[in-house]
């Protein structure tokens, strides 16, 4: 039956150029388009053959303009003035050829006036009438003709599409089935929202189909479905070019009317001045008496009958080409479809005779049996016969790319547009809870309008093309600035009904509820679940690079115990720490909010830069959390979080308290390598920028004062705490009587690094063996010295005396504590010595080096024993002391246990820490350190 189809699609659009002040030049764009295109197209519809139908898109700005009473009134005045000019011209003209043209215009303008008045200035209503008769399918486009792929957020895309559809509904009383993508610009994801809006079809360039995955089986011969089920009709370039092409297209024929010659520029100023712009600017009157003539400046008179003859020729040619194309590209099913979409204003405004060409072409098509079809009808017949493909980003612009709307001249615009989108999401998040303030909601709606008006693809296009570039830039900038001025009024709470009315009146566009498009469920969830309660609970932002289950040193445990105790005592604690594979990004652990974040380069080879990367992520996270949580202060732990702690302090303007657990200088007994130097600097910056420092011992305080010149009054000593439950040995099984039970058993645990002093134990064991003392040392832990120590034990044949247990779990560690007679910690450097507390809390006699923080924990021969660091004979002394004072040692151990569980309990430490949080506001500085 059918040998193919032809589908004509016109898209009518003007940017929103209504201004309250009269005589704006840009308003003339509406008048010209009405006179030359929108009214003549009504004549086409009136006269077109019954059986034909085509598709016409009206952009929402155009719908609003054509229905605006101010525009309607001004257009009538404009027509009056033109008719007056025609009368004057009639009198003025002496040339018969000219008089003929004037006569033509007189009749034409009278007809325009008559049509406009017949329809009570309601042009859109007139079109709706023809739509109801089945002569045309009307559809619409996005709210302000935004270039959709260059919108950033889904919310903004939805606002553009859905409010476009709603505007159409307002004027046509029904939803459109089709949608015009501004500039035929498609990108993946646009179809999702179109489908959501109930749109069944839209238009793309043919290249969009050819670049799809997979290439459609019919190539460009049939529409396709996008992944979300919207039918895409593709622009047939070959057929479109016959009209579109500026050099070989029909509109350039010498017999057609010349666009660029207007009587406005031909007459004496005095003669014409009351018909041009009141400020004396010569602007088109619409009376153009000449034909294109040729490539010459000397234009001949427009000869109406010549133009009509050419129309016949060109309509025949066009129909012939369609027919030939359909014949050459015959395909089985569905039949070949040629879709020819154009800007509506091409017909009439740019190509004066265009509407008549369309009418002629319809008549010729009918004679030649070319089947016209609308996309709607095509889908009705063939919806089962179409491929589904994945089309890519493309447009109908130059090279089918985005380069016209994104190039050196206009790229700067998108930064501002995207910024507005995010501001609107932010505003919507805040508004969702502040229900009921009608004025603020009007502000929010107007902000959406301003963003929409700035987002019109026209501005980028005009700036690129340089015609009216100044106006486009001004309009763009004006809307961006109005947007932000409104935003400031909301946030400064200076909003006022008068102000917002002024804004609304200036651009009375899409006067519907718009801001809710920018809401999203997550923000609403957060708003309703995290009410800012006015309670006295302190909100603490805790920064630590390690947190369970990531345990590298004692830091993780410390932060964990402190945090949960603080929560127990009534603070809110938010810990930001590094991410751990397999652990949640957010969890609430014993009431502590834990956020685990990863740097953007989580495998950075250099540990130092890895921390830098982590810090940027931590700060970013903290600042985001602060959008909702009003943190009272920051509590940072060690240099690893220095960079983020200082940045957050500055950004949020809250005090910073830092616990220094150890220093690079202390660990290495001085600074020797460049990396140590960098770390030392970070430590200094952090200490300098903190408002208060916590250290665990007098020893550490002295180090901070001597090495870093930190003022003494800035430092508070709070010991580390211990949780007795953590070292309780749970097993009910009685300890086995194994080989150790007869000997004196001394247990040590810690990382096998030099400063822990485990090598001294080996030396002491050697002396004790010589003396014939039965004693067994067990050293648990791993570390770089493991092999060296092991080797030493073997060389000296001390296997019976010293046992390296390697890594032990907490459970095993507790078992060793339970079995042992004493705990031994012979460190050379120990800022605090939490392990000693664990030994004491386990109820064991605890022997420590008389150094660092260890020295301060134990009272010699009262709560434990002290030995000299790095002195094996001193350990020998301690062993012998135990052997000869068994009873006394039990008492000492009991005293030790009591001290550990009271003085060093987390309860008292957390309480004192919380006091610091309260007092820190009194001596807060804005200092955030400098770069050294």
């Amino acid at each position, binding site marked *: 039956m059918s040998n193919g189809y032809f589908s004509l699609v016109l898209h009518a659009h003007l940017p929103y150029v209504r201004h309250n002040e009269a005589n704006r030049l840009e308003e003339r764009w509406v008048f010209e388009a009405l006179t030359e295109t929108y009214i003549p197209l009504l004549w086409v519809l009136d006269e077109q053959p019954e059986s034909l139908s085509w598709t016409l898109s009206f952009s929402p700005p155009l719908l609003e303009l054509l229905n605006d009473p101010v525009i309607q009134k001004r257009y009538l005045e404009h027509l009056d003035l033109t008719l007056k000019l025609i009368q004057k011209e009639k009198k003025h003209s002496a040339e018969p050829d000219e008089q003929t043209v004037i006569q033509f215009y007189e009749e034409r303008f009278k007809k325009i006036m008559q049509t406009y008045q017949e329809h009570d200035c309601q042009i859109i209503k007139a079109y709706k009438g023809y739509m109801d008769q089945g002569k045309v399918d009307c559809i619409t486009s996005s709210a302000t003709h935004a270039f959709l792929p*260059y919108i950033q*957020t*889904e*919310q903004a*895309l939805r606002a553009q599409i859905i409010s476009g559809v709603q505007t159409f509904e307002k004027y046509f009383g029904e939803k459109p089935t089709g949608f015009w993508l501004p500039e035929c610009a498609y*990108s*993946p*994801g646009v179809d*999702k929202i179109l489908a959501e809006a109930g749109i069944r079809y839209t238009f793309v360039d043919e290249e969009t189909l*050819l*670049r*799809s*995955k*997979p*290439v459609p089986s019919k190539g460009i011969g049939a529409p396709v479905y996008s*992944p979300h089920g919207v039918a895409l009709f593709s622009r047939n370039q070959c057929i479109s070019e016959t009209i579109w092409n500026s050099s070989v297209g029909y509109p350039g024929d010498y017999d057609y009317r010349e666009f660029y010659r207007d009587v406005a520029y031909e007459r004496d100023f005095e003669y014409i001045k009351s018909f041009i712009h009141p400020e004396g600017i010569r602007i088109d009157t619409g009376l153009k008496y000449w034909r294109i003539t040729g490539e010459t400046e000397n234009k001949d008179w427009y000869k109406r009958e010549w133009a009509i003859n050419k129309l016949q020729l060109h309509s025949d040619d066009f129909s012939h080409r369609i027919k030939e194309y359909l014949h050459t590209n015959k395909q089985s099913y569905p039949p070949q479809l040629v879709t020819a979409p154009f800007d509506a204003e091409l017909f009439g405004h740019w190509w004066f005779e265009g509407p008549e060409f369309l009418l002629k072409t319809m008549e010729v098509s009918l004679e030649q049996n070319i089947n016209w079809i609308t996309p709607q009808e095509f889908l009705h017949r063939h919806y089962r016969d179409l491929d589904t*493909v*994945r089309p890519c980003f493309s447009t109908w612009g130059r090279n089918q*790319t*985005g380069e016209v709307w994104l190039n050196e001249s206009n*790229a*700067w615009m*998108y*930064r501002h547009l*995207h*910024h507005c989108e*995010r501001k609107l*999401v932010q505003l919507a*998040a805040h508004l969702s809870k502040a229900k009921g303030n009608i004025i603020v909601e009007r502000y929010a709606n107007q902000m959406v309008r301003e963003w929409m008006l700035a987002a019109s693809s026209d501005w980028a296009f005009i700036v690129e093309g340089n015609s009216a570039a100044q106006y486009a*830039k001004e309009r763009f*900038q004006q809307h*961006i*600035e109005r947007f932000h*001025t409104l935003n400031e009024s909301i946030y400064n709470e200076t909003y006022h009904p008068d102000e917002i009315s002024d804004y609304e009146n200036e651009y009375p566009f899409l006067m519907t509820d718009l801001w809710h498009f920018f809401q*999203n469920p*997550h923000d609403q969830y*957060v708003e309703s679940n995290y009410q800012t309660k006015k309670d006295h609970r302190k909100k603490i932002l805790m920064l630590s690079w390690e947190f369970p289950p990531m345990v590298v040193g004692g830091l993780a445990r410390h932060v964990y115990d402190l945090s949960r105790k603080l929560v127990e005592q009534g603070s809110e604690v938010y810990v930001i720490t590094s991410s751990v594979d397999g652990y949640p*990004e957010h969890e609430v652990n014993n009431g502590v909010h834990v*956020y685990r974040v*990863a740097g*953007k*380069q*989580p495998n950075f*080879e250099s540990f130092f*830069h890895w921390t830098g990367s982590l*810090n*940027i992520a931590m700060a970013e996270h903290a*600042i*985001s*959390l602060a959008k*909702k*949580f009003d943190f009272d202060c920051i509590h940072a732990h060690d240099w690893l979080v220095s*960079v*983020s702690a*200082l*940045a*957050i302090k500055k*950004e949020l303007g809250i005090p910073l308290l830092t616990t220094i657990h150890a220093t690079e200088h202390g660990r290495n007994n001085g600074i020797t390598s460049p990396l140590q130097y*960098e770390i030392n600097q970070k430590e200094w910056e952090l200490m300098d920028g903190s408002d208060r420092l916590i250290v665990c011992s007098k020893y550490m305080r002295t180090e901070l004062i001597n090495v870093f010149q930190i003022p003494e009054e800035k430092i508070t000593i709070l010991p580390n705490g211990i949780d007795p439950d953590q070292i309780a040995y749970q097993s009910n099984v009685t300890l086995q009587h194994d080989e150790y039970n007869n000997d004196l058993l001394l247990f040590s645990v810690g990382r096998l690094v030099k400063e822990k002093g485990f090598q001294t134990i080996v030396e002491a064991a050697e002396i004790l063996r010589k003396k014939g003392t039965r004693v067994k040392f067990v050293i648990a832990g791993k570390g770089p010295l493991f092999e060296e120590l092991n080797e030493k034990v073997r060389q000296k044949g001390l296997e019976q005396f010293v046992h390296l247990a390697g890594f032990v779990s907490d459970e095993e560690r507790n078992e060793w504590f339970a079995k042992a007679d004493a705990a031994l910690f012979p460190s050379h450097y120990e800022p605090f010595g939490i392990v000693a507390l664990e030994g004491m809390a386990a109820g064991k006699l605890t022997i420590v080096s008389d150094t660092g923080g260890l020295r301060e924990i134990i009272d010699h021969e009262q709560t434990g024993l002290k030995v000299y660091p790095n002195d094996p004979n001193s350990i020998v002394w301690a062993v012998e002391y135990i052997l000869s004072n068994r009873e006394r040692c039990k008492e000492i151990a009991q005293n030790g246990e009591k001290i550990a569980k009271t003085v060093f309990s987390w309860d008292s430490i957390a309480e004192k820490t919380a006091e610091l949080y309260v007092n820190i506001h009194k001596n807060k500085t804005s200092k955030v350190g400098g*770069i050294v």
Partner: protein
Amino acid sequence: MIEDIVKLKEKGLTLQEIAQRMNMSLGKVQYRWNKYRQQQTPSKPELTPPPKEVQQDKWSMPYEYAEANVCLMPRTPDSLYVYWSFSESIMQMAEQHFRTEWGELPVVLKIYDVTDIHFYGHNAHRTFEIDLPPMTNNWFLQSLEPGRTFIADIGTRTFDGSFFTLLRSNPAETSPDPYSSFHDEKIERWKHEDVKEPEWLENFSTYSYYQKIR
């Protein structure tokens, strides 16, 4: 030159317009203007206490916003566009981490080909770096391979030359060449509802203000 900028600025032109009029890059104008403004600010602020209740300046469109942001946009089958801006805190952190003034830090763009990859920072198919001229806040990426997905990092260099990321963009695609694919697994799985979410990049994501709060 600065006198001309000041004159035009007093006439109410935006920096953008001044740049165009003087045929200079916007960056240059911005730079000179900022420098001028800094010089105008008295070095001893305590001598001139700020007058209270000054008429608030009307909000005017800035050259860029002081926010941490990178946006990568599709453009042609072989080019993409990226623009960015830094927040005060990112700049401060970079200064502090490298102990170097912001202006002294090199700005480098690193492009990752992340086609069909769940990218976490180190697993791109291919990468390349572009050393940027100072005062740049946007770039047209040219000569890219069609039909690929890219991510752009804005960063700097460590002293030993490694790239250090400060900001990371969204992914964006170059359009494929015509007739590049005659079969597509992803659309098949999607059509047969084997997957819940599309396995390809959709340009738009729901932006959430409280994104990081759970």
